[in-house]
């Protein structure tokens, strides 16, 4: 059967037979890097278009519909425009940090890509502390944002960056606790183990109500961590012009824009891995016939489908809810999400110890 796993294995075998192992390994690195970069580029194009269309339909509009069939080439045209523009560096800016910041943000987004399993047997790096690695690296992106805000030498940028810092530091907690609740149920930090443990059903369904609450808290927390509305105080168009990337133009601005959408894709991928079984098809306990039918859909499609469903939900949030004020934002985290997720974690630990989950 043709699957991504077989294709990668045959490429690996062919490279190793044609070249010596060191060259083969280097070539594989190159191929993987190219795939990562092209994935980023395609994601940027697709997700921006999806966002514009979804927002348009939710606001009873049509959205982009002139460039290409149904507006499908709109984002290509936008990217071309951004590529042509001058990447201006303001006079008063800290030039080195200003130019470094977009690359930090995009590099962090690339780093989280490593432990994600895209399909059965397709994972760049299955390290034994995968979940810990993801939580650790995902909080690094705030450094790029702070760097951009500080180096711009602009009060709006600095305000946006500081807000983003406060936001990510607080929401890391409830996101971490939600991740831990799945780790408690699985008993492993390794991504492949977590996916394998959902062989007979996703944790969202197996873990009863507490897993569902953990899932909702995780979705809220990742919306906040990716700085998306209703938590987009770092950008806050109406008050801070564009927040931390006010001073950026051209391709440097495009990198921030791209990083936002890639981050959404990645955090939705993590949510899908932890709660919805990653590439694992929908399996229900011992219904062997049903499980076999579900196995016919390729695992990569399952994973992409779950990710895009979650992305749609997050876009739905963005185009429905008004932006929170900074005090409301911190209230929500420290007074509601954190206590609830602590109690929830206790319940999940109880379930895991007593073995009440399916």
């Amino acid at each position: 059967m043709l699957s991504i796993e077989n294709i990668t294995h045959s490429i690996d075998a062919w490279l190793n037979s044609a070249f010596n192992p060191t060259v083969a390994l280097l070539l594989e690195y190159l191929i993987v890097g190219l795939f990562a970069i092209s994935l980023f580029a395609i994601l940027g194009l697709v997700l921006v278009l999806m966002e514009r269309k979804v927002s348009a339909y939710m606001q009873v509009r049509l959205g982009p519909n002139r460039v290409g069939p149904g507006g499908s080439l709109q984002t290509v045209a936008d990217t071309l425009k951004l590529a042509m523009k001058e990447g201006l560096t303001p006079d008063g800016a800290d030039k080195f940090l200003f130019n470094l910041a977009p690359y930090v943000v995009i590099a962090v987004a690339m780093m989280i890509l490593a432990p994600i399993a895209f399909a059965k047997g397709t994972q760049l790096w299955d390290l034994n502390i995968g979940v810990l690695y993801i939580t650790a690296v995902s909080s690094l992106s705030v450094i790029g944002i702070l760097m951009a805000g500080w180096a711009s030498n602009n009060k709006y940028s600095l305000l946006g960056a500081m807000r983003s810092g406060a936001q990510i530091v607080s929401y890391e907690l409830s996101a971490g606790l939600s991740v831990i609740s799945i780790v408690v149920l699985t008993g492993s930090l390794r991504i492949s183990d977590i996916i394998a443990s959902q062989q007979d059903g996703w944790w969202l369904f197996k873990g009863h109500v507490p897993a569902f609450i953990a899932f909702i808290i995780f979705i809220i927390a990742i919306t906040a961590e990716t700085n998306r509305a209703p938590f987009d105080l770092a950008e806050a168009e109406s008050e801070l012009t564009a927040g931390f990337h006010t001073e950026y133009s051209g391709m440097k601005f495009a990198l921030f824009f791209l990083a936002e959408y890639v981050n959404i894709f990645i955090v939705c991928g993590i949510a899908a891995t932890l709660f919805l079984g990653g590439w694992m098809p929908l399996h229900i306990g011992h219904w062997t016939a049903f499980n076999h039918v579900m196995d016919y859909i390729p695992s990569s499609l399952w994973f992409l489908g779950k990710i895009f469903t979650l992305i749609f939900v997050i876009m739905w949030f963005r185009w429905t809810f008004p932006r929170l004020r900074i005090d409301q934002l911190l209230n929500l985290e420290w007074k509601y999400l954190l206590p609830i997720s602590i109690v929830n974690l206790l319940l999940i630990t109880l379930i895991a110890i007593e073995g009440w989950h399916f």
Partner: protein
Amino acid sequence: MAFLTTYLKDVLGGVRSLLKGMKLTGYYFTHHKEIITQQYPDNKAELKLPERFRGEVIMLHDEKNEHACTGCTACELACPNGTIKIITKFDVTPEGKKKKALDTFIYHLELCTMCNLCIEACPTDAIKMAQNFEHSVYDRSKLTKKLNNPGSKIREGVE
């Protein structure tokens, strides 16, 4: 215990109101026939404007070239930005009495914000909002319009 119930009520109430909002946007997302966008230059022939759309102020004339404007200047006084200027004259009635009447109704379209206050102020419903919105011209002076037709006079019986 009371604080716990209010706390839980807060959470549930919040979740409920958020879901309510998502229900509405979800309804719009799935029901494309609600879309109000019009593909303007393409659908010029079948363009449908809402009944209350305001494009410009016009004065109504009947087939005998008569209007209902008494020249009372209520619209001129109601206008917040001096869009309307009314020049009056004195007609002589058959009985030999002088009566104030409209000479020229000057309307500056370039200053108009389509606020509808003049139409509400008019006691005789002489003016109304038309739906024509394609006002672009190359010369600004073309936007200053004279609303009463040449040779028109006030309709019999309008006071």
